[in-house]
């Protein structure tokens, strides 16, 4: 289907089902129960899942296929966001032009940055991209304040021109919409104590993510994707065979920059404001974490990684000391206090510690990320069925002297 082989079609369908049914799947606990705070099915978080999923998918096209580790990808996200918000200020609050322009502007910006940075490889490339991103951040913060709003950032205001909206004639407070459907519109379904929220913005972002995901599958399976993998495996050999690898890496860089711009545009469409901190290098580091955590070079990995990190950021950080004390009230006081103190290190404001540890464990033991972990888990069961364990000598114990 759609020019994909059977496995990829299956993967696409599974992802489509997961995203479409996310409001159910992410809300497994009834409202009001003590576990309800583990529910991730509220619009804001679901939107972040898919938007950062797009960001990570795009990053994976560059890092996963070509092996070029960019430490400045947040710059493209930020540029896309600024482009989108200017479209909303000048033209219309409809999100379609905003999203389109964000992709185009981020693409152009990444063309310029990529053209310069790709002259070097390895750690030099990482430092160059980092330098560009930090420069964009610093400029957005200071000199470019007329365009970027500086520290306060940008929001749509009632006084903005909005040429197309004004032609229709309106005097209402500006809200982002998709041909009249406001992004914030939610429809709730109460069912036996479970509350499921269906949000217009989420579904728009989810559909766009599915398209982005489909495109990334096509890129992975195309001759172009094969070429990118060849660059990762051995660029010298490719050069010796007479292939100029630069256009391929540049194309991959621009595509992944456009994905980042798309994510930035969608972020603005869901929540109409931008600030320069979106381009800070920690934001670039975050997308690296997402991709590695999920699995570099795999199709679904980056989406899983993005989901996991955003879930942890929103859910784990909500668990504070009072809550922990409530949970462990059944234990004797001293033991309970000890458990609360230890867990308090990892939850609430300390969730970054959990993230850092998890990340280290993945890099050390599971270089393929969550996807490899899943494969290994399934592999254990399968291998046992296939072949009986090879006749290995039983472990000998050294005799005691």
């Amino acid at each position, binding site marked *: 289907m759609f020019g994909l082989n059977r496995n990829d079609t299956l993967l696409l369908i599974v992802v489509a089902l997961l995203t479409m049914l996310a409001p159910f799947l992410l809300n497994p606990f009834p409202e009001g129960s003590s576990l309800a705070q583990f529910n991730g099915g509220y619009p804001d978080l679901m939107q972040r899942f898919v938007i950062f999923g797009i960001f990570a998918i795009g990053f994976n096209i560059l890092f996963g296929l070509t092996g070029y580790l960019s430490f400045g990808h947040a710059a493209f996200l930020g540029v896309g966001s600024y482009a989108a918000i200017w479209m909303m200020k000048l033209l219309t609050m409809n999100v379609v032009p905003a999203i389109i322009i964000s992709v185009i502007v981020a693409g152009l910006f990444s063309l310029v940055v990529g053209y310069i940075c790709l002259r070097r490889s390895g*750690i030099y490339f990482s430092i160059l991209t980092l*330098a560009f991103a930090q420069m964009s951040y610093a*400029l957005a913060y200071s000199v470019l304040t007329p365009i970027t709003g500086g520290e306060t950032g940008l929001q749509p205001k009632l006084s903005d021109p909005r040429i197309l909206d004004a032609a229709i004639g309106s005097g209402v407070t500006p809200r982002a919409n998709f041909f009249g459907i406001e992004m914030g519109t939610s429809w709730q379904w109460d069912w036996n104590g479970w509350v499921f929220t269906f949000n217009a913005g989420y579904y728009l972002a989810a559909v766009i993510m599915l398209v982005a995901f489909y495109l990334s599958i096509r890129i992975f399976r195309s001759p172009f994707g094969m070429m990118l993998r060849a660059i990762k495996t051995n660029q010298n050999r490719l050069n010796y065979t007479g292939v100029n690898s630069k256009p391929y890496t540049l194309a991959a860089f621009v595509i992944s920059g456009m994905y980042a711009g798309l994510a930035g545009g969608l972020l603005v469409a869901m929540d109409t404001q931008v600030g320069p901190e979106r381009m800070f290098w920690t934001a670039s580091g975050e997308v690296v974490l997402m991709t590695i955590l999920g699995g570099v070079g795999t199709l679904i990995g980056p989406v899983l990684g993005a989901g996991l990190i955003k879930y942890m950021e929103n859910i784990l950080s909500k668990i504070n000391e009072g809550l922990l004390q409530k949970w462990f009230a059944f234990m004797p006081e001293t033991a309970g206090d000890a458990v609360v103190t230890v867990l308090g290190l990892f939850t609430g404001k300390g969730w*970054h510690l959990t993230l850092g540890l998890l990340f*280290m464990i993945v890099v050390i033991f599971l270089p393929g990320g969550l996807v490899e972990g899943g494969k290994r888990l399934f592999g254990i069961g399968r291998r046992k069925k296939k072949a009986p364990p090879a006749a290995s000598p039983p472990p000998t114990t050294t005799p005691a002297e």
Partner: protein
Amino acid sequence: MDAILLQILNGLDKGSAYALIALGLTLIFGTLGVVNFAHGALFMIGAFCAVVLSRLLSFSKTVIDETRTDFLGNPLKVDLPYMHQWFGEAAGQTIIDWSVPLAILFSIPIMFAIGYAMERGLIRHFYKRPHADQILVTFGLAIVLQEIVKYFFGANPIQTPAPPAFTGSFDFGALVGLDPNTIIYPYWRLIYFSFAVVIISAVFAFLRFTTFGMVVRAGMADRETVGLLGIDIDKRFTLMFALAACVAGLAGVMYAPINAPNYHMGMDFLVLSFVVVVVGGMGSMAGAVLAGFLLGILESIASMSQVIDYLPGINQIVIYLVAIIILLTRPRGLMGRKGVMED
């Protein structure tokens, strides 16, 4: 002229910090071939060594002072630091005031132990892995170290003053024969610069003039041959890692009075130090030191008001701009050698 001289002096302290961190990074890269993203965290831990020591020294117990009373007539409770009790009031207070210089001695064994444990426990397993994996695992380690410090010391900067003898400023202009009152420079910054020069010279001398240093240099040039000669090069490289950790830690200790330590200071410096290393030339220690001072001074000159009027915002981006220009025109950095990190 005065203004430029002042800015050069102002750039020296930041430049010293860049140079010290970059020196450690290059040392680790040159010996072990590992790109250490946790080096900024070591700098930060060094600064917190100063905080810990100053807290330890001012530990006090509450005693009842019979001679003084509060407004109700009850005897007043006062905190008496143990240092005062043990060494007398004047000597005790001096020890407390001098906690930052004392922290140099305090931090060396700590940083050495941390560096040794880091290399043996984690980095050792990453020699054969690609550079990207090394960057990522040390990046994760940096997050973990940073969060642990944040948990124990909070997110706010902690003021750690220099000894009172060095808190003031002096008239540098009058010293070198310029008009008085044009170049006022704080003592501590001059001390930091001298300290950095001493440390850097010590590291270079150690590598140049000792047998140990000679073996390490030989190992940097050709690890395998040195191993074949029957020298345990791994052990020496581990010690070099610990030494690099010490250099970063000492840079942090002495930086505490200039910039109150907070948990993310390491990351702030790390990003810039990496730029410094790359500008200086990956693998060249002299290049790292040179680029550190140069970029520090350049950053400070770019923040002069005359320059900003001319090129607004240049102070924010000058380091990155210079890095981009240098990497594109001199791909190996200022003093880079051939064949380092070029795969």
